[in-house]
């Protein structure tokens, strides 16, 4: 019988991610990371729900997440992705992208690498809204409409697609190793092919009718051409990028903005 555990953590959490487990082990993941937002001091934290630590845990506390370690974060954590077992990438509302390393033996977190203010306007910072990675490559998108490609362990940025979008890009996902898909606040999905040098998308798909902003996107785990998006009106759309520029399935999922994760 499944049970739901709730725990108050005294901060607003914006994103959580399970730490990836290696394919050879058949365990369920037991460590997850959270990023906070809208606090005076934001932080990222690692939690464990395994039976670590003391064996004299009181009854009723099984499955309660235990805080392992946390680290201060500058600005709201808008998105979070694990790069590999130890490193996690975060994007901030100050436009910075940071890689944190989780040292498991000492249960501490340290900043491994950071690119401050990569997303910005001429005179202001722009929040960086989404990140996706396939080690060692990292792709981020922001409210300034830029797509930026980094490599972990390299100082500068590898590639910038300026003015990729005239409105805010809300989310990004990998379609293939050289192709990404972004969604923006005027309801369009744009396909970008990194093998091409031009700064324009290779394909644009959108829903005919109202320009509902799309907030999140994710790819089908097994079929690379099927993607799902979540919109501002709570509508879940499933698209086939190979054919048609309209979704083949629409579902009324929520009454408000939603997030999509497979």
């Amino acid at each position: 019988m499944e049970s739901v555990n709730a725990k108050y953590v005294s901060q607003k959490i914006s994103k959580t991610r399970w730490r990836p487990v290696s394919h050879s082990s058949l365990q369920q993941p037991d460590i997850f990371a959270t990023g906070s937002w809208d606090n005076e001091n934001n932080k990222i934290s690692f939690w464990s729900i395994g039976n670590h630590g003391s064996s004299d845990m009181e009854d009723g506390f099984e499955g309660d997440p235990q805080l392992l370690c946390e680290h201060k974060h500058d600005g709201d954590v808008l998105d979070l992705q694990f790069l590999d077992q130890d490193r996690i990438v975060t994007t901030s509302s100050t436009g910075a992208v940071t890689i944190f390393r989780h040292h498991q033996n000492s249960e501490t977190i340290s900043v491994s690498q950071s690119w401050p203010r990569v997303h910005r306007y001429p005179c202001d910072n722009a929040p960086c809204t989404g990140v996706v990675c396939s080690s060692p490559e990292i792709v981020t998108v922001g409210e300034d409409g830029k797509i930026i490609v980094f490599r972990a362990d390299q100082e500068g940025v590898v590639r910038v697609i300026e003015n990729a979008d005239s409105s805010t890009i809300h989310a990004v996902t990998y379609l293939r190793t050289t192709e990404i898909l972004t969604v923006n606040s005027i309801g369009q999905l744009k396909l970008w092919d990194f093998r091409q040098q031009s700064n324009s998308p290779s394909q644009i798909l959108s829903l005919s009718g109202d320009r509902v902003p799309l907030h999140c996107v994710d790819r089908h785990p097994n079929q690379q051409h099927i993607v799902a998006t979540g919109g501002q009106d709570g509508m879940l759309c499933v698209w086939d990028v190979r054919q048609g520029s309209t979704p083949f399935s629409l579902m009324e999922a929520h009454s408000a903005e939603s997030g999509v994760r497979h």
Partner: protein
Amino acid sequence: MEELDVEPAITNIPAASDGKHLGFAWGPGDILAYETLYKASSGAKGSGCSFIHEVRKDEDIYSPILRKLFNESHHIFVGLQTIREDLPNKNKKPQFVSISKNYRSVIRACMEELQQVAVSTKDAKVSMQYGNQVSILLAIELIWNLCEVLFIDAAPAGSLLLHLLDWVRLHKADVDEKAREVLQSESPAEHHDYWDVVVSYVLQGRLEEARQMLVKQATLQPAARNMYKLMDTLLTKMPFYNPGGTQTLTEFDVKWRNWHEEVDRCLQDNSFASNRHLEIICRILVGDEDMLLDHKELLGTWYHFLVTRLLFSHPTVKPTELHYYAQSCMTMFLDSRNVPEPLDNILLAAFEFDIHQVIKDCSIALNNWWFVAHLTDLLDHCKLLQSHNLHFGSNLREFLLLEYASGLFTHHSLWQLAVDYFDHCPEFGRVYLELQIERVPLDTERKALKVLRICEQRQMSEQVRSICKIMAMRALRNNRLGSALSWSIRAKDAAFATLISERFLQDYCARGTFSDLDLIDNLGPAMLLSDRLTFLGKYREFHKLYGEKRFSEAAKLLLSLMTAKIAPRSFWMTLLTDALPLLEQKEVIFSADQTHELMFCLEELTSSLNITPGTDGSMQDEDIELTKVELLRLALARNLAMAIVKEGTVET
């Protein structure tokens, strides 16, 4: 409003230098203070300081542990509001009691956590701060518990004393600690605290435990076995009222009096004269006030004294009689040297069933409206507050909730809780919310969307428009025209959409190409929001048709843009210039009628241009304009000729 009878507290601003005049401005919950140029001593001007100091009234909402208190009590509050109104009060009482217990358990949980941190931290300042918060929370829980017993549960005589006993036992935890220490020692009966523990048990009415302790002493003194047996009998026979049983209060009273007489007889007979400790216990059982007062350190507080005294002299006390005893007990306990503290006055007011006084005193004593707001709300639901209209038209409950929620709104993160509080204030809640929600700082789109969602759910269209305009202006300033347009579409703000379209068109005129084609090409039905926007969309469509070489459709579109008056007058020249290549084509695109209309438009344009004296612009500009008009006239004439010929020709 009444005058406060306490001196206001003084807060020092450490960073401000001496002798400077400070200016200030009120905020919703804070004061901003700044140094002015004037020196206090002389009127001469000094150098200014570039700092602004923010003085916060309420530190507690920024404490991470207390935050849990606010969140969980918010949850309980919302649940309370949804209790159905139509049930009779009798059925709702257990619900209210359980809600009150929920609130108290939340307070206790917070207290424990604060205590843990206060004990384990190495920072002395933090430890002291948390220690203070723990004692405040203790006091709050004490008051709340008493209010629950007296007001919400409203126990009648008989049960009242039992509840008060529970109340006292809950708040005097050191007895158990001492008892544990004694029992864990080698020979408990010879421990120096042994008799203290026994007497404390008796004072709290825990006679069973007292008897168990006495057994240990009895085994050590076989000679006095009879005395201990007698004491044991007395302790066993003391009657306690059973609310669920069949015994009525009068029957209990009779039984109790009989027992009381028996104890008195034992005292008169000097049965316990040889053992000082047993004599003390016997005197306590008979309700001897002087003996009780002798044990002030064990009692600790005057309200413990009150409850013990009632237990052993008037166990059938009625709620209405409480305040006589309370007042006299407080006077007896606190001799002339001790001044009653605010907590004592609050408890006394509670015993007197003066709810308003309790609330008023708590509001003054605490720096945060949390406690009074939630307690008043609960009491109001129990229909215990008379509708007491305050000067500003709302009642007490609403006033306190509004104050509390306004304080929450100043917090960068807890503002979301405050929204629910405002929702449940029927008179002024909406107005407050409308004013406050516009002032939430919006750093990211995500936060703006959350705020907008709150406004849209409550049909606050003014605020929606205002927030969208803020976001759109910000986007515009950063040259993100697409974002700006999507914000103004969400707000259905036609005026702003017009502004943005103007920017687009200006860009086009300056550079010759459109920026952000992905946006303009995909406007969809949003195009109809404003005329200018429609024009922009249609104009882009014209360019697309031209690019696809669908000339006749392009021509028709172009003409309709001018004749339907969608295009602004300032753009007509550009449109006519765009028409030139269509006119110059080999085949006739514009029909005769269409050409006539174009000519009409040109005449309208030139006549209006001629009216205004062309003082601005150099001679060169005027020349260009004239040349353009000339070219157009020529092209139109030629086209007209060809069109007439073409239309007049009969195909054979």
